[in-house]
């Protein structure tokens, strides 16, 4: 058999592939935040009544808040199983930059939660009678926002991975950092619903994503070293 190419055998792709396979084998864990997102939003028209004017007004905010909570729900498992079975130690001591392996894990996390959330959102927008002009804004803002949330959330997950019950702590650490994303994300959709330009909000979300992309993997890698060391 031929030796695999250097690119295919790099630890980034190996970790990426392994985690993707794991995500698909643990379907329950992957579906949990998506089902939460779906159910929570389905409840809203049932609770508030089907008045189109009311739903239209709250739809951007509701979808964004629920997407944020669904992401939060999925964070704890990001490094948990690796920590429990010893794979995290092996990742730490591998002759490969930890930042890149962490990046691979975050990428899988986003593919398994952020991307499906983004794809589901327009469907739920219809349910909340979101105006047609806002659908593109909803998709773009969630695409940028969920990626930033996966990155920032990884730092919280890395900091709390050695604690037995880190769930509450993650929310406390990560929530303040999610708030700007929520504000600009929801605002983008709201503005688009009114038929106005939402470039500014998207630009801010993009800038946030760029900063998170630069700093979050570094911070998460550092936090993992501290967590495993303890």
């Amino acid at each position, binding site marked *: 058999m031929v030796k695999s190419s*250097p690119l295919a055998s790099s630890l980034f792709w190996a970790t990426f592939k392994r985690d993707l396979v794991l995500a698909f084998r643990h379907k329950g864990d992957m579906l949990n935040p998506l089902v939460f997102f779906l159910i929570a939003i389905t409840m809203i028209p049932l609770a508030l009544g089907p008045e189109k004017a009311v739903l239209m007004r709250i739809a951007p905010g509701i979808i964004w808040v629920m997407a944020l909570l669904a992401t939060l729900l999925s964070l704890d498992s990001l490094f948990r199983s690796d920590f429990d079975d010893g794979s995290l130690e092996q990742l730490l001591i591998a002759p490969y930059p930890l930042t890149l392996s962490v990046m691979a894990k975050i990428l899988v996390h986003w593919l398994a939660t952020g991307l499906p959330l983004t794809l589901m959102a327009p469907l739920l927008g219809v349910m909340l009678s979101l105006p047609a002009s806002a659908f593109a804004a909803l998709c773009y803002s969630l695409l940028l926002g969920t990626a930033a949330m996966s990155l920032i959330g990884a730092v919280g997950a890395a900091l709390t991975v050695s604690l037995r019950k880190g769930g509450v702590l993650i929310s406390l650490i990560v929530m303040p950092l999610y708030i700007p994303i929520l504000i600009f994300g929801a605002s983008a959709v709201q503005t688009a619903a009114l038929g106005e330009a939402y470039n500014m909000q998207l630009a801010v979300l993009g800038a946030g994503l760029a900063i998170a992309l630069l700093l979050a993997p570094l911070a998460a890698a550092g936090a993992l070293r501290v967590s495993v*060391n303890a």
Partner: protein
Amino acid sequence: MTAAPVLLELRNVACERDERFLFGQLNASFYAAQVVQILGPNGSGKTTLLRILAGVSKDFYGDIFWQSRPLKDAAWEYANDLLYLGHLPGIKKTLTPLENLRWYAAVQGGVADADLIRSLAEVQLAGYEDTPCYRLSAGQLRRVALARLAFSNAKVWVLDEPFTALDKSGVAELEARLAAHAADGGLVLVTSHQDINVPDLQWLNLLDFSVDAQSLNSREDAPYG
């Protein structure tokens, strides 16, 4: 034995956990072609020492040298030459043994699948390549982790209780593998509560480096790190 090059050297290594010194003034040199069993009762710091040697834990005093260079400067070379098998085996139960090994193969830059399958056969897991690991027994799971030794190109093996859950023939096979690695010029650092049957086995007893309360007081003035 002394003619063999020094691979790892510990100078004045001390480790404190929960305001208690596990061991102190640990000076030791480990040579190529050596199998060293680290001894000590439960809680004496065997696992902690191995985690320090593996680079997982950096929370210690003193200096470690890899081929006469400080570990801080030679971290990359050391990581390339190290195989650490911890107390936790690092095996994903949802994956198959082959998928697990593929990840470890990527750590050392890629190994052909055929070699991985042969490695699994060497630990008596032929035919289990595609069985999910959660279907395997504890001993078989340990064997999956030990299959890493078969295709490893690392010089230093740091093994924490590798004999756990292995049956008699598994223990004998592992002993033979450790002896073969030493004969190849490798270094094996291993903890175990059993007697290990390997020629020229050396011992490092952590009780010799335990710190009592009195010497601790004099030590607090001593500069570490």
